[in-house]
């Protein structure tokens, strides 16, 4: 397959993550995972399988307990927390389930936020806003506040914020979790459009097999360990069917399928 020839942008080998606390918890266990530049990967698994932990490791918010992690050619462990913050700022865009727009900022200000931190010139910021807002159909609502937006508009704004600084990787944690099916479809189409046109790598954690069917590849994990991995084929419909099959194998957790 063609995308496999690209550069590896994320690489985990034998990564283990243990949370210490009153109860010690092994969130990931000897997990191998890599993503190529420009790939659109979904990570699926039951609740508590370590999906979000994986995302936090990739985003360098958390460091692995054991194992090796390389993101965009950098080992996060080698960087100071300051360097890490700057590294995150320039390499990642985030999209969350509960959207997390800053409520005191307008749509436009929310989107431009990452750029202001880097002190870009105003005309450059405005150029990018205009480009992004037409891509995301946000032109008419740039001056609204987050509490005046529908769920889909809010998530599109969040995607705008994730894209504005042209990151290498977009990390999405259940981006469609709180959306109705129409908005969810919009958001997914948008993400795959961005993935195709900008060649931005997207790693998306999701429960939703429909959302996963937009991706190039789906990684399944269970109890912090690798479970399965499938690649997309010619038709989304069959890919979707195969995802369902793996999910049903993944454990008798019928609840995960209920949304179907």
């Amino acid at each position, binding site marked *: 397959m063609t995308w496999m020839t690209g550069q590896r942008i994320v690489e985990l080998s034998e990564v283990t993550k243990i949370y210490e606390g009153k109860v010690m918890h092994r969130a990931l266990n000897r997990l191998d995972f890599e993503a190529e530049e420009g790939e659109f990967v979904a990570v699926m698994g039951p609740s508590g399988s370590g999906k979000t932990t994986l995302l936090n490791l990739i*985003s360098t*918010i958390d460091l692995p307990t054991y194992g090796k992690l390389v993101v965009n050619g950098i080992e996060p462990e080698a960087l100071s*927390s*300051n360097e*890490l*913050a*700057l*590294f*995150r*700022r*320039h390499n*990642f865009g*985030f999209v*969350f389930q509960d959207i*997390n727009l*800053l*409520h*005191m*900022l*307008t749509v436009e*200000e929310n989107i*431009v*936020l*990452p*750029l*202001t*931190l880097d*002190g870009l010139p*105003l005309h450059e*910021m*405005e150029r990018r806003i205009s480009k992004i807002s037409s891509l995301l159909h946000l032109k008419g609502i740039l*001056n609204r*506040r987050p*509490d005046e937006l529908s769920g889909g508009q809010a998530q599109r704004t969040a995607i705008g914020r994730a894209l504005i600084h042209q990151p290498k990787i977009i990390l999405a944690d259940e981006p469609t979790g709180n959306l109705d099916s129409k908005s969810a479809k919009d958001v997914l189409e948008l993400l795959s459009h961005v993935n195709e046109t900008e060649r931005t790598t997207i790693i998306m954690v999701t429960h939703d097999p429909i959302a996963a069917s937009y991706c190039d590849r789906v990684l399944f994990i269970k109890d912090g360990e690798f479970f399965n991995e499938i690649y997309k084929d010619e038709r989304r419909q069959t890919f979707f069917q195969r995802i369902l099959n793996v999910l049903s194998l993944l454990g008798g957790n019928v609840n995960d399928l209920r949304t179907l």
Partner: protein
Amino acid sequence: MNFRQFAYRNVIRNRRIYAAFFMASVFSVMVFFLYSMLLFHPSIENRFLQEIALVGMGAAELILFIFTLFFLFYSMRAFLQARSKEFGILLHLGMEKRQLHRLIFIETLIIGVGAILAGTFLGYMFSKFFFMVVKQIVLLPALPLYLSWKPFALTVGAFLSLFIIISLSAPVFIRTGRVEELIRGEMADLESHGFSTKKALFGLALLGTSYWMAASTSNSIVIGLTFLLPPLATIGTYYFFTDSLPFLLHLFRRRKKFYWRHFWLLSVSEGVVRLKENARMFFIVTIVSTLAFMSVGILASLTSFASQYRAMNPLGLVYHSLPGNQMEQRHVAELIDELKDKKLDYTLVRIPIIEQTSSFTENRVSILKLSNVNLLAQSFGCSKIDLTKGFAMFLPPSASSYDFLKKRTVETTLKETDISIKIEGAYPFQLFPSSANAIGTNVIILNDEDFEQIIMQDIDPASVYYAFNIPDWQNTKEIGLQINRESFITGSIHHLPYIFDNPGANYAIIRTTFSLLLFAGLLLAGVFFLAAGSFIYFRLYTSLERDRKQFDVLRRMGITDKEFKRIVNRQLIPQFFFPWGVAFVHSSFAFLSLQVIWDALAEISIVKELLLVLVGFTLMQVIYFYLIRWRYLAHIKASA
């Protein structure tokens, strides 16, 4: 676990949130109690002090009480709103609204009673110390610690009723209308504007006008302005915080070139939200701080007042016996006895004053004998002056007239005795009281030979001036009380055959009044300071959940710790320092106009003292700021 226990445990387990609130309450109870202790002190009865104490402390108590009421209302509301989720769950589980109200009532009362107990206890513990401080600044004889039910009754009564009012009305703050709304927790309504441009401009105009008027006052209108400006500035300040400031920030937000620069975006937008939530609180803090600055500034200026007062009144006691005074010998003997009694060192110089008519001006001129003046000068450590026969010297009535008189030479003849003299220059030392208490405006010092010659011609002294030089002049307030009493009985001062002046006693009264007010003001300022700080902390605490989420977003987005600190700084600093900054500006302008009054009164400059006060307050505020920021950052990061 019964219902009361449930309420009790709620308080105990929410202690982190309650702590700041509780501390501020305890402190205001304590200060209130201390004031009451002074108010009811048995040993300040029947003295002029009592009146000052009553008015000053009473006013302070009233202000404190009202402020505490506001403070409790605000805190309670914010606090209950922060716990709305918890109440929602309780209602969801089937608690009746009546029960919920009772729960809140009991909880509030527990805190209230706790604060009252702790406050009065601490107050009583500190009252001895408090009395010592009062004694030090007021120069009173030691105030003994006393036990009386009155201060306790006043404090407990006042605050118990306060807390009952609060606890009864507290449930009104939680809207129990829709349970699910409570559970979700409410977000502050964030309309995009929330200010009226008209009011904004009105507020700015009011402030501008009052500043301008305060800065350009002249002596003639200053009294009128003192009545006009405070209400003007107060209303202006109110609109400044509710409308003008949001308006200005709105203007700033349109200037993307600056607004979209680094942290400004986050800080300014967060500032707007905070401002909207706290505008009224900021207003109160500003006004109160202004009052505190003003009182402290005025009172601090007393130190320079003291030295100037001394310069104007170099003599410890003055007894000026006019013709026809039969009590002269007795009064002076009494004063000497009293001074010896009090073990106060003194030098008494008896100065007979002769009056003659000057041929030069045709006016009466008072004449002092040079050796008398030299005698007095020696007691002050000043050098002797020599005058040969035929020469005299002006005795300037005030320091400012010296410059004019020292270059003047007048040749004149004293008409009654036909003695010609040359009056040359002015006496350089300020030994006699100036201005109102001066011997007269037309006084000369004559050489001894000519003076004796006048006496020889059977001219009786017109009056005798007894000048007491007392180095320890501030302790003379007990001297001459008998003479004062006689004067009161005899009637109007103008008909008395003598003039008795005790600058030490007058100074003590002025000083005591101001010091007491200063002390009351400082304690009040302390309460306000603590309350304002605790309120800000409290606000931060209630919005912690939201802030944590924001921090999480920002952290993922890649904000370094340093940058985050800067963002938090930019959010906190305005909250801490803006009201104080406005208060600074307010009081500076107020002092500008007050300086005019001071100038007219006593040629006093209060710039230095004021600066000292402002610096002191700022320092305290900075410490408080760092303390709260430290706690806030710890809370935010702990959960992320």
